[in-house]
């Protein structure tokens, strides 16, 4: 029986069968997951962008915040799934604004306490939306607390220090930095990057977690020195 193994037809058929199997295993276990991950990232960025057009009218904040948050997280030694979780949370952090009236979001005059409360609801609303989606449910924790401050002055729960999840502490810095450096109707002059970095450095230990601020400064300094190098060259 095994002597027949040298039969060329047997060899050819076996070869074809083996290559079909290998190819389909490769596609379904390596290629497909990678492609799906890409599709998720792209779609979620698109949805976040849709909310941004409603919120600030300019697109790209979510992407920038995600980039910054991921670099900070990397500096803090976070890898793998956790890094991905922070990335998705950063993209989706303001998705709750989709169901907050545009008139309040874009108001130029100071908000009334009532309106301010409505705006503050966006982190909880966003977390609720994300919780309904199995694949993204684990980002809900980070989204709820992304406006909490280290000293307990943030919203919605006024949590303090280590009580705030690390992912949210990273998001707080990344999103505040982006908010300070970009123009908004209620905040017409955007800060220069150096000014914003200085603000965040000053609030280290009061608003922000000092260790995360250190990582942030490292990221920003690395970025700025590389920029200077480019300029010098």
């Amino acid at each position: 029986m095994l002597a027949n193994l040298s039969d060329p037809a047997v060899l050819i058929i076996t070869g074809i069968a083996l290559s079909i199997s290998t190819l389909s295993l490769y596609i379904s276990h390596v290629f497909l997951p990678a492609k799906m991950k890409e599709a998720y990232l792209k779609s979620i960025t698109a949805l976040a962008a849709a909310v941004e057009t409603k919120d600030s009218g300019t697109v790209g904040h979510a992407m920038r915040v995600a980039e910054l948050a991921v670099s900070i997280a990397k500096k803090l030694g976070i890898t793998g799934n956790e890094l991905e979780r922070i990335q998705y949370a950063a993209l989706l952090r303001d998705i709750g604004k989709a169901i907050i009236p545009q008139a309040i979001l874009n108001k130029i005059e100071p908000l009334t306490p009532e309106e301010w409360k409505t705006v503050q609801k966006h982190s909880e609303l966003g977390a609720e939306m994300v919780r309904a989606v199995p694949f993204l449910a684990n980002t809900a924790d980070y989204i709820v607390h992304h406006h909490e401050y280290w000293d307990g002055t943030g919203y919605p729960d006024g949590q303090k220090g280590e009580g705030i999840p690390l992912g949210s502490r990273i998001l707080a810095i990344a999103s505040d930095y982006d908010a300070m450096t970009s123009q908004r109707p209620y905040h017409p002059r955007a800060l220069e990057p150096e000014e914003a970095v200085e603000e965040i450095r000053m609030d280290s230990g009061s608003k922000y977690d000092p260790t995360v601020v250190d990582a942030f400064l490292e990221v920003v300094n690395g970025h700025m020195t590389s920029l200077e190098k480019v300029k010098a060259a």
Partner: protein
Amino acid sequence: MGSLRVYRILQFLSFLGAAATAYFAWWCVPVPAHAWHSVAWFVLFATLAELLGVMMGPEDSDLEVTPTSPIYWAAAAVLGPFSAIIVCILCGFLSDLVSSTSYHLATSLDSIISSKQTHCTSRIERYVSQFLHKAGSTWEPRAQENWFVMLNRDMMYMSAVVMLVGIGGLTYHWLGGVLLQSSNVVLSLRNFILPFLGLVAAALAVEWCLHLIVMVVIDPIPGANGLYGVLLRMKLILIEEVLPFARAQLFLIVVALQMAYLFSRIGVLGFIVAAMPIVALRDFFHNWVTRRSAYLDTITTLATYMQHYHPYTRGHLKRVAEISTRLARELRLPAESIRHIGHAGLLHDIGKIAVSEEILDKTSKLEPEEWEKIKEHPLKGAEIISHLDFLEGIVDWIKYHHKWHDGRGYPLTNGSDGANIPIEAAIIAVADSFDAMTDDRELSLEWICDSCGHKPENNERPRKCPNCGAEKRRTYREPKTLDGAIDELRRGAGTQFHPRVVKAFLSMIERDGVHLDAR
């Protein structure tokens, strides 16, 4: 009960046919020496194949094929028709035995798992349970049936299989095929491949003929008698059962050919080589389908939530999705459209996220510039959707869901008339308008008296305020009655709405009523 008697006669005839085929097979083609060994292997593999059906396409396309038939064909070519018949019969009994056992084992395993205190099940338990469920899935629907009915049907099914395998094997023999088990001749087109194709053709022809006869007898088409009924049934079988499986069938023929050849050369190893690509492809299709649907569900859920600025929207979107899906089925659109039109129904208004709520909620007349804002929403929605993978197909459905059949409506496109609007967009337009006309948006608002601010308990919605007696004003207009909405659709057919869609909608409503799951 004339048809029952005919059925019994049919049953008797099929037993007779099976017996005759078996006798002929035994008489015409001698059973090769030492065949029993191989018979046992064939039975084993055929049973495995029977229990683990293979999905050869997207889940909802029903392309599940059990790769048992190629094993039977291969058996007929390797061992001759009589041994192949034995293989069929033994496999029938064995697979029933295994599937009933695994069904019972699966149920008891489930009860053991659910009675455990912890909620987490170990990985092994999950795999075993999955496997047993899969293997027992053919038994599950039968568990409720009367054993006598079951036995009768099984016997009839088995005699059909005996006939097709026997006749296939005889054809192979008459066309000059050699029995692979006993010969060491060099195989060629003339003595192996062509006869084998003849075998498959004969087997399929017998299978479809038997199916046709049974269907004509037990399920006659009303209003079609005699030859016309037979032809009509033939057409139906061709369209619904033969053509959709043509590609899978072709694949199975190739598998059977190589299985027969490999088994004759390298024995059991041949089965494994032949089964490898099937198992891998099965894994691939399964993975692809589950991942894609998980992705689509995730993204649509998230996007649907993003539209819930108003409590009214949620129900509306779900109903539009449901009506659209039913309409797409009614119009017999391609499977791909039916699969995605529900997503489109849920997402059709996502462009409104860019429109201020003040404009959307305005009950008084809109200013021209406000109208312009609203008119942008289909384009904005299409823009958002175009970034979502696997939903590229629905971009145009969303873009044109406010475009009229006669070219009016929005968005304004140069020279676009009804012919360019995809039918799916027309379906969403009808579903959207119907639901908007019949739904009472008022119910989404809290009932508060306009003059004294009284709020009744128990969510009552009285006409007059029980506190001050003031008449309650409506914020939104009164919803139309069902007849009113239908009239409106009928009036708009050909101008605002696609006439074919309206026609389908009316016949659907007339037949099924307007009950909606999402209401």
